[in-house]
């Protein structure tokens, strides 16, 4: 059973449909009650870091999510959900994140002529091999919508990058935790492949 954590931030229907389409059972949950039933946990989200972490703290979910990750089961953060994996966020003021990937989420620094938010299809440059990349080619495109991005403390945690006025962290991984800045559930066949790979993953690299 794939667990989808509903923090009240954005559209979960597409992600649920993508998991269903890929042939896996899922359950959407707002708290940790069902965590024991889950083989995998997905943290989606669109919106503000501060609002989302606020929801995590309000429901006292931070230790529960960290315990889930410590159990070795795969955890996936999508878009804002990936940013929440970081140690620190800065959107709306500095704030503690889930601390599952060492790094800080900062506003994109853009050169002249580039527009914020970074919206649209951009290529994913794989920075290392990983089970979730099974069957994916180098530089396939994924759908991004974001104004902030994670900067990893350890470059070994950078799973993929995209180019938007310079390299931007597009995917991270640390042990059994992965994060995608883009929306795999909105990224056509390549995105569905990533979701399928994650759902099949046992958390080991």
């Amino acid at each position: 059973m794939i667990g989808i954590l509903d923090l009240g931030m954005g559209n979960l229907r597409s992600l649920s449909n993508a998991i269903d389409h890929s042939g896996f059972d899922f359950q959407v949950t707002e708290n940790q009650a069902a965590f024991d039933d889950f083989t995998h946990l997905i943290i989606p989200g669109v919106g503000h870091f501060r609002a989302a972490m606020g929801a995590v703290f309000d429901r006292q979910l931070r230790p529960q999510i960290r315990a889930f990750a410590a159990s070795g089961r795969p955890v996936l953060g999508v878009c804002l959900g990936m940013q929440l994996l970081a140690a620190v966020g800065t959107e709306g003021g500095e704030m503690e994140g889930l601390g599952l990937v060492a790094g800080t989420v900062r506003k994109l620094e853009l050169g002249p002529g580039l527009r914020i938010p970074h919206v649209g299809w951009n290529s994913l440059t794989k920075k290392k091999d990983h089970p979730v990349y099974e069957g994916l080619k180098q530089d396939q495109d994924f759908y991004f919508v974001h104004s902030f991005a994670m900067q990893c403390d350890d470059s070994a945690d950078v799973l993929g990058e995209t180019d938007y006025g310079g390299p931007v962290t597009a995917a991270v991984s640390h042990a059994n935790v992965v994060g995608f800045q883009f929306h795999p559930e909105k990224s056509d066949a390549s995105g569905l492949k990533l979701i399928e790979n994650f759902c099949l993953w046992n958390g080991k690299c």
Partner: protein
Amino acid sequence: MLKKRIIPVQLLLDGRLVKTTRFGEYRDVGDPVKSSRVYSDQRADELVFLNISRDQPNVTPLAEVIAGVSKVAFMPFAVGGGIRSFDDAAFLIKNGADKVVLNSIAYRDKEIITRISERFGAQAVVVSIDARRAPSGGGYILKSACGTVTEDITLAGHIAACEAAGAGEFFVQSIDQDGTMAGFDIPLIREACRSATVPVIGCGGSGDYNQLRDAFLETNVSALACGSLFNFSDSNPIRAKAFLSNYGLPFKVV
């Protein structure tokens, strides 16, 4: 590198797809869920749904369409037409919309832009602007309520005000060109791109791939939305991108 986008635009009237000419003369062109499945297979980059039914006071039918489409198409959806409140927008997003499209209300209530933007992010707020060329020549007249009400603000002024309120994207449509298949209003798109610092989607007038090429090459537009081109011809997004790639324009690889 960020890719250009090609977006089939689908107009909804009582749950059916229709196509207009200059915002009138509706023609039925099918079922939105079935067509969206086809557009997905044809590697469209995004889908825009606009409800043009004026006698429906709520967004429930739109949400039902999106809920169906989100089972068969895995790409972003921008949805609008008749959004009157923050709750309408939140309801559509909960039902599968990634972005909501605001038009008439964006002239009167900037607060709704700000509220949606603060809750779901600026990228979730697309302000749609319907424009007609000024009869005197030079400049544009903005129209709300499906082209029936004239707004007393310039294109640049409206774009700046909406951006300040938190809009993350503009959908700029030429009423003059709508459904004519005579090509985009390139000066309109250019002016919108010059005024906006967020991405601009151009719409209205697509009839062949050369017109897409011209609009992409002659403006900084991020995306072009097409109705008639895909509704009425055997053109499709795959062929459009194959053609446009010959001119150095970048599109997604999946």
